[in-house]
């Protein structure tokens, strides 16, 4: 994911994240992709559109919430995956303009 070419927009970043995660899950779990179901089936699912949140004071960012992580997507295509408890960055990828997501 970190080595993939950077995305140029939020839509591209979300697509990159989804494509990469789904490819890994398809290869290593063999569990069918069922985005419309909700119960744990042993497979990881990329951020879904209905999990989007606004970020106060940052119209350039969209936050996608999951159990242990916030995935922030920038309008420039940058991606930041941050653990909720430790606030540690688990993926910090710049957009096509070379800028990463900076939080206060």
């Amino acid at each position, binding site marked *: 994911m970190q080595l993939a070419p950077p995305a140029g927009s939020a839509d591209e970043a979300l697509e990159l994240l989804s494509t990469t995660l789904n490819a890994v899950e398809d290869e290593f779990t063999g569990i069918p992709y069922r985005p419309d179901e*909700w119960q744990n089936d042993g497979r*990881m699912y990329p951020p879904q*559109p209905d999990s989007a*949140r606004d970020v106060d004071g940052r119209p350039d960012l969209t936050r996608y*919430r999951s159990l242990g992580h916030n995935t922030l997507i920038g309008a420039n295509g940058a991606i930041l995956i941050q653990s909720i408890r430790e606030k540690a960055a688990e993926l910090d990828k710049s957009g096509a303009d070379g800028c990463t997501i900076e939080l206060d």
Partner: protein
Amino acid sequence: MHDRTRLNLPDAISELSCSLRETMPDAIVDVDRPRDPKGEWWIDISCGDFLSSVAWRESFGFGVFTSQASFAERPDEIYKRPDHAAKRLCQILKSWKDFGGADALWLHDLRQICDTPQTSVAEKMSQSQAAISKLEHREDIRISSLRRYLNAMGGRLEMRAVFDDFSASVDISPRKVSAEVRETEQ
């Protein structure tokens, strides 16, 4: 209990907060709202060092997690009713206090969530309360006993066979088994 965001919440989430207020009075509840109110809400519950999060979707209900947080997992258990979700969260809190982690559902946990006394299950299964207590703590249980136990609480048993390349429901109804046995015997 401190509920930091009680305004404009969906009724189900307000009801969960009320139930938690009764059962976990020291808990702090935070609600993480989605951009679209029809989307996925998150309810974060903390009580001392205990932290748990529940997801809520209008079309599904409350998603409760018992497994460790990895990335992008889905709920292990889903409850339509807020009071059922609150009871389950109390069980998880107790399990966390006793063992340091969330435990999978045991039969007696299920019965407590359904608010069904052992005597009622025993009566419906035509067994003694002691027999039900023993059944709830048995390590290995007959499928027929499990089916009757769940039926007695208004539930039903479903079974799925899961392989790497397919999964399917397995029919374990008594009628079907009897038919197969009769066929074999002829």
